[in-house]
C-alpha cells in the first residue's frame, strides 16, 4: 500500500507541473464567473488550444487523432495537477469526454482524422443531445425523430439540458428511427451539423439565475447517412458504450463544497469567538471532514485500480451522489451560521464573495445533472449490488403505445 507515484509517474507529474507553472494563466487574468459567459468560452478555447499545441490534450487518445497515446493514469495525473491552477481545464468535458469516444468508436477513419484533432484543440465545439423534456432519467423514452430521406435523414424534435449548444459546431444526437419497436430498440445515433438552418438553440434560465444549458429545436435538420454512428436502431448500445467511456474520464472529484467550507469555517467568528470553539459547529464540521476524506480516499482507491489496469465501474457514481448532497447541506449550514447575513448575496458584502449563497442556489442542480440522486442509487443497486431491476410496465411494448413525459389526466 503506497501513496507514492512510480518513478515513471513521478517524472510525468514533474513535467506536467513544470509546464503548468510556466504556462497556466494567473487567477486574476481570468474573467469572473463560471462557464457561462462568452468571455469564459473564449478563454476556454484559448487554453485548450495551448495545451493541445504543447501535447497535453486528450492524453489517452491515439496520436493520429490528436492525443498522446498514454494511459488513464497519466490523464489522472494531469487532472490532479491542473486542478491546482485556475485554468479553464475541463471546459469541454462533455464534448471531448462523451462525443470523442462516440466518434472514436463508431466514426469512419476519415471522420476520425478530420474531426477528432479539431475537437481536441477546441477548434470545433461539440455538444451531446440525449435528454428531452419528456425523457430525462428515462432517456430511452426520447421522441426526437429521424426520418430517412434519400441518402440523408431529417431530424425533428426537441432536446434539452444541452451544455454549450450555443457554441457548438457539431452535436452527437440520439434519435428515434422506428417508433413501432420497443423503447430501447428503435433508436439511432448520429452526429449533426449544429450550424445549419433547421437547428435553433435557446438558452434555459436556471433556478439560480444562470444560463449554462440550452434547449435545442430541430426542424427538418438534415444529417447525411454517413454521419450515422453505429447500426440503424442500434443507438442504445452506442449510448451505453459512450457512457461507459465517460467513466474513464475520472481524475477530478465532484464538487462537494468542502474546500470552500473548510477555508471559511477556520476564519469565521461567532459572537467574537472562533466558530470551531462551538461544540456543535466543531462536530458538524468533523462529520463533513470525515465524509470528504472518504471521498478523497475512495478516489485514491479508484485511481489505484486504474493504475493497475482496471476500469472504474459503476462505483464511480458514488462521488457525485455523495458530493452533490454534501454541497447542498454545507451551503445551507453555512448560511445558517451567517445568521441574518445568510440571505445577503451581495458579492461585496457577503463572506467569501457570496460563494455559499451561490452554492445554495446551484446545489439543487448538482443533484440532478448527469443523473439524479435516485438514478445514481439505482445504478449502484443494480450494477454494483446486482439487485433486480424495477418491474417495468413498458417492457416489450411498441414505443408509440407508451405514455411518457407530462400527461394531464
Amino acid at each position, binding site marked *: *500500500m*503506497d*501513496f*507514492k*507515484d*512510480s518513478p515513471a*509517474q513521478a517524472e510525468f507529474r514533474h513535467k506536467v507541473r513544470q509546464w503548468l507553472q510556466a504556462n497556466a494563466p494567473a487567477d486574476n487574468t481570468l474573467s469572473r464567473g463560471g462557464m457561462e459567459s462568452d468571455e469564459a468560452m473564449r478563454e476556454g478555447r484559448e487554453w485548450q488550444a495551448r495545451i493541445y499545441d504543447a501535447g497535453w490534450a486528450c492524453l489517452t487518445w491515439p496520436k493520429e487523432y490528436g492525443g498522446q497515446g498514454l494511459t488513464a*493514469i497519466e490523464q489522472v495525473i494531469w487532472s490532479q495537477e491542473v486542478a491546482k491552477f485556475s485554468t479553464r481545464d475541463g471546459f469541454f468535458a462533455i464534448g471531448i469526454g462523451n462525443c470523442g469516444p462516440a466518434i472514436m468508436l463508431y466514426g469512419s477513419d476519415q471522420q476520425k482524422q478530420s474531426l477528432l484533432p479539431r475537437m481536441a484543440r477546441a477548434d470545433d465545439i461539440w455538444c451531446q443531445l440525449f435528454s428531452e423534456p419528456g425523457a430525462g432519467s428515462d432517456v430511452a423514452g426520447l421522441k426526437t425523430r429521424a426520418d430517412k430521406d434519400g441518402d440523408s435523414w431529417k431530424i425533428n424534435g426537441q432536446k434539452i439540458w444541452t451544455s454549450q449548444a450555443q457554441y457548438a459546431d457539431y452535436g452527437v444526437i440520439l434519435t428515434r428511427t422506428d417508433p413501432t419497436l420497443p423503447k430501447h430498440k428503435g433508436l439511432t445515433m448520429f452526429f449533426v451539423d449544429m450550424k445549419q438552418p433547421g437547428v435553433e438553440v435557446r438558452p434555459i434560465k436556471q433556478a439560480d439565475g444562470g444560463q449554462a444549458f440550452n434547449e435545442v429545436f430541430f426542424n427538418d435538420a438534415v444529417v447525411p447517412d454517413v454521419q450515422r454512428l453505429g447500426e440503424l436502431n442500434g443507438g442504445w448500445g452506442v449510448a451505453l458504450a459512450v457512457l461507459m467511456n465517460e467513466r474513464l474520464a475520472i481524475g477530478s472529484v465532484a464538487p462537494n463544497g468542502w474546500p470552500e467550507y473548510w477555508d471559511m469555517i*477556520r476564519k469565521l467568528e461567532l459572537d467574537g469567538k472562533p466558530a*470551531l470553539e462551538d*461544540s456543535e459547529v*466543531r*462536530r458538524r*464540521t*468533523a*462529520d463533513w*471532514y*470525515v*465524509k470528504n*476524506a*472518504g*471521498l*478523497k*480516499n*475512495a478516489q*485514491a*482507491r479508484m*485511481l*489505484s*485500480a486504474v*493504475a*493497475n489496469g482496471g476500469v472504474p465501474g459503476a*462505483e464511480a457514481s*458514488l462521488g457525485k*451522489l*455523495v458530493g452533490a448532497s454534501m454541497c447542498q447541506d454545507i451551503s445551507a449550514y453555512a448560511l445558517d451560521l451567517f445568521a441574518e447575513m445568510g440571505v445577503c448575496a451581495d458579492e461585496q458584502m457577503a463572506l467569501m464573495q457570496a460563494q455559499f449563497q451561490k452554492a445554495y442556489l446551484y446545489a439543487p442542480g448538482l443533484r440532478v445533472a448527469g443523473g439524479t440522486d*435516485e438514478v*445514481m*442509487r*439505482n445504478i*449502484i*443497486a*443494480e450494477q*454494483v*449490488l*446486482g*439487485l*433486480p*431491476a*424495477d*418491474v417495468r410496465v413498458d417492457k416489450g411494448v411498441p414505443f408509440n403505445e407508451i405514455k411518457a413525459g407530462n400527461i394531464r389526466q
Partner: protein
Amino acid sequence: MNFEFSEEQKLVQQQARQFLTEQSPLSVVREVLERDASQVRIHEDVWQGIVKLGWPGVAIDEQYGGLGMGYLELCVLAEELGRSLAPTPFSSTVYLAAEALLLAGTEAQKERWLPAIATGGLVAGLAFVEATNGIAGQALNMRWQDGGLQGRKTPVFDAEMAQLLVVSAINEAGEPGFYLLETDQPSVRCESLTSIDPTRSIAAVEFSKAAADPMRQDLDFAATMGVIQDRAAVLFAFEQLGGAQACLEMATDYTRQRYAFGRPIASFQALKHKMADMFVAIELARSNAYYGAWSLSTGSDDLTEAACVARLSASDAYYQCSKENMQAHGGMGYTWELDCHLYYRRAQHLASVLGRQAYWKDRLIAEVA
C-alpha cells in the same frame, strides 16, 4: 500510487475468511450468545485456533516472538474477525494490550510478555476506563500506592479470561501512568457484567492493593494514551467494516429471494436505495480505513487524523448497515432467531469501546484545524 492491499495480503485475508467460516460460523457465535451468566463469553476453541495460526503475533516483531508481518496483515485479519463476529479476546489482547506493551512497556516487560501474546495464547487487556470517566478521561481514581493498585475499572473487556492487564493509575505524586498486572492474585476481583452484546466479554475489575509492575516512567501519559487509541481505532475500524459488509450482503441476499406483491422485494426502490446507501457508507468507511491502514503501517505522522476519520466513518457505517439490515428483514429481522441483531449489538459494542463519537470528532478537529 497503489492504495490497495497486496496479493499476499489478500491471500492472508482469504485464508482467514476460510478458517473463520469453518471454525466460527454464526452457530458458534450464537452458542456464546445463549450462554448463562455464569459462563465466560469467549469461545475457547476458536481462540485456540487463532493462536495456533499465529494471528496474535502477526504485527509483533520477530525479536519479540511475533511473525513481524506488519499492520496491513493485521488489518485484513481484523476485517475478517469483524465479519465473522468471532467471540474471542483478540482485540483486547492484540489491538490494545500488545500495542500498549510495545509503547509503554520496559524492555524487560516486552521480552517477557510479547512472546507470550504472540504465540503462547496469553490473553491480555486494557483496564483504563472508570465507568463514566472514559478512555479519554484523565481524572483517574485508580491509585498506585505502596507497590499496589487500589480502585475499580469498568468496563474491562475480556477481563474474565485475561491473565495480564495494562492498568492506568495515579501515583503518590499525583502523576498518571501505566502499570502491568497479573490477574492471578486474590487482590484482583473480576465481576462479569451484562452486555448489550452478549457475544463479547465485559467485566468490572476491583483491585485491592493488587501487586503490579510500573511500566515506562519516561513517557508523556496523554500522548502515549493517544497513540494507543489511534492505533486501536484503525484496527477496530476494519472489524467494523467487516461487520457492515456482512450486513449489506445479508440484506441483499434476503431481499432478492423474499417475494411480496408478486416480485422480489429487492426490486422496490425503497429497499434498493436503502441498500445503495449502505454500500455508499461502506465505501467511504473502507476508503478511510485504508488510509488509516496506510498511516499505521508506514508510521506516518498523520495517524491521529487517519484514525479519527477511519473510526468515525466505520462507526457510522456499521450502525447504518446493521439497523437497515434489520429493517430490510421486516418482522423476521426483529426475531431472536435471525442473526440481524447479532450485528446490531456488535455495531454498538464496537462504537463504544474507544469512547464516544463526540470525543473522536473533537480530537479530529483539534488535530487538523
